[in-house]
């Protein structure tokens, strides 16, 4: 049995300094989720919601990166409205395609370039693209800064690109940067 060599010098932990309330948006979401889960706004639950909202982001700080501070809340609400409306409208459109046996859709691969800086914003853009029917974000190419989108029925691919950039990417850029 050999003896153990001296332990190697401890490497610096791969995490930034944690701060309480370093992720205000997340803290709010979590506290709200807690209340939603409990289905009640009794004092005891609110108290716990605050605790959970503060503790959890602190606990998983290293995993979630730096906090975000949305800049234009009203714009965000507007974007939400636009997206919800588009979901309904486009769903109906897709339903037509699906249910019409004679309709032969023209699928296409579309590259949607983006200028967003924040990865979360890119993710949101991709999410919106997929959630609005007719398009699915297939590859987010971070080097080329473009999203490869598959469109179910796109006689005019460029129209889709323009639509996405205009309706979603621009507002997102303003909100998150």
């Amino acid at each position, binding site marked *: *049995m*050999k*003896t*153990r*060599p001296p332990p190697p010098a401890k490497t610096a932990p791969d995490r930034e300094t944690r701060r309480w309330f370093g992720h205000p948006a997340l803290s709010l979401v979590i506290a709200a989720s807690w209340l939603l889960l409990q289905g009640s706004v009794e004092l005891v639950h609110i108290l716990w919601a605050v605790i959970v909202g503060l503790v959890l982001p602190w606990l998983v700080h290293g995993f979630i990166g730096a906090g975000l501070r949305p800049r234009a809340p009203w714009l965000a609400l507007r974007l939400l409205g636009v997206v919800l409306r588009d979901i309904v409208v486009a769903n109906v459109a897709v339903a037509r395609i699906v249910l019409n046996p004679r309709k032969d859709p023209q699928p296409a691969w579309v590259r949607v370039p983006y200028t967003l800086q924040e990865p979360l914003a890119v993710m949101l853009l991709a999410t919106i693209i997929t959630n609005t029917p007719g398009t699915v974000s297939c590859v987010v190419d971070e080097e080329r800064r473009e999203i490869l989108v598959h469109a179910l029925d796109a006689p005019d691919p460029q129209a889709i690109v323009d639509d996405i950039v205009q309706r979603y990417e621009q507002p997102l850029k303003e909100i998150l940067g």
Partner: protein
Amino acid sequence: MTWLQGQLPVLPVVLPLITAALLLAGGDGLDSPEVADRRAVMRTRVLSLSSIAVLLGISAALAVDAAGGDWRVYRLGEWQAPFGIVLTIDRLSAAMVLLTQAVALPVAAYACGGWDLRGRHFHALLHFQLMGLNGAFLTGDLFNLFVFFEVLLIASYVLLVHGQGRQRFRVGVPYVALNLAASGLFLIGVALLYAVTGTLNMADLAMRVGRFTGTEALLLQVGGLLLLVVFGFKAALVPLHLWLPATYAAASPPVAALFALMTKVGVYAILRVHGVVFGEGAGVSAWLAADWLLPLALGGSLLAALGALGANSLSRMIGWLTIASVGTILVAVSLYTPGAWSAAIYYTLHSTLVMAALFLVADLIAQERGRRGDRLAMAAPVAQPALLGSLLVLVAASVVGLPPLPGFIGKLMILQAATGPSAPWVWSAVLLVGFVSLLSLARAGSLVFWKVAAAPPSAQRARSGLVAATALVVLAMLGLTIAAAPLKRYTDAAAAQLADREGLARAVLGPDAGAGAVRPYRAGEDR
């Protein structure tokens, strides 16, 4: 009753767990693949051995307590049986727990000779295994028995491949797979019993099973027979024995020695479930196992003894002999008389110790034979023929049943207990098994010690610590002979106590023996 006395029954389960948790938290000193952390290794060994020593003391105290003749019932969570889980301590379970630690202590000491460094967390796993074994022996609840079976099994899966290497993993996968399948059968069996009787407490089951007839009884019988398959498989009852020889041969020797206990768990469960629950008082389901057990055990023990004859390594031979000895025990169990059960219990004690000793002796021999190990082929002579030879002769003679060793006394007890129409079969089988075992052990011994290459004896001498640990098991075995008279009284009483369903029910379930505990379960009623 002092506090300690009151809490005694649960300690054989809790203490190993705490020890294992401490061992895990403290690390085993093997984090770095190249070098062992000497201090951590020492700490681990000291903690492990001293914990088993304490356990041995606790088990001895339990056995002394049980010898008084009363059932000790430990109500976990302070819940009344049959609702909560109880530990039921009678002479039999106390004896098995004591036996477990008596095997474990020398085996652990033996492993400290170096085997424990050949893989991660050996001692923690050993303690988990002890927890499972003790729990299985102590529990009075059928489903809880399943849980502890799983504890001891899953620890055994890992211990089996301890030391790694191709052969161990080769047998490991089948071993686990078979046991998983068996666990499924176990659950179906338990489920059927619950589905009909509405209870899981074994004392309650023993009182209730006899009340059912018709399809209910049929369901119970299927459940009981499935459990017989499961326990028979664990006990390596022929034809469910095929997994054992290769498995035990591949296990590292201390693990194989420890596994001598594993087959006995199956025997124990058969005694509890098929001896008592489906025993005399089970109405139309009485003696459910008898039709199967006696012929299989008789034929099986002979077949296994024959298997030992052709084995090509010591450890494989010991594996076959293990099957044969369990077969002999099950022959006694299947006679369903207190005398035969007493013999079965005594022989179980013997068989466990002797097989453990054999595995350790075989390892000592293998270590001194160099590359050939324990293979039954010509090799260099061992360095200490007198020592190892004497150990082997002593242990082998007991396996064969040569007097005055405990194997002889056990077989004598079985012979004397076998009366009635099955007696000629039992006698022939027991004696023939002894004869064929004699042939194979003589062959093995003469091959190992006499048919040696003309080389000088290997320089590798067994470490004295290992020899001492082995000798400890052998001494424990010899103790069975020296103390045969009090032990016989104990096993007689244990068998009588085992058969006393009413006494058990009163002790576990209270004076009304659980009347009213099970009620019709209908929506909207009784709530």
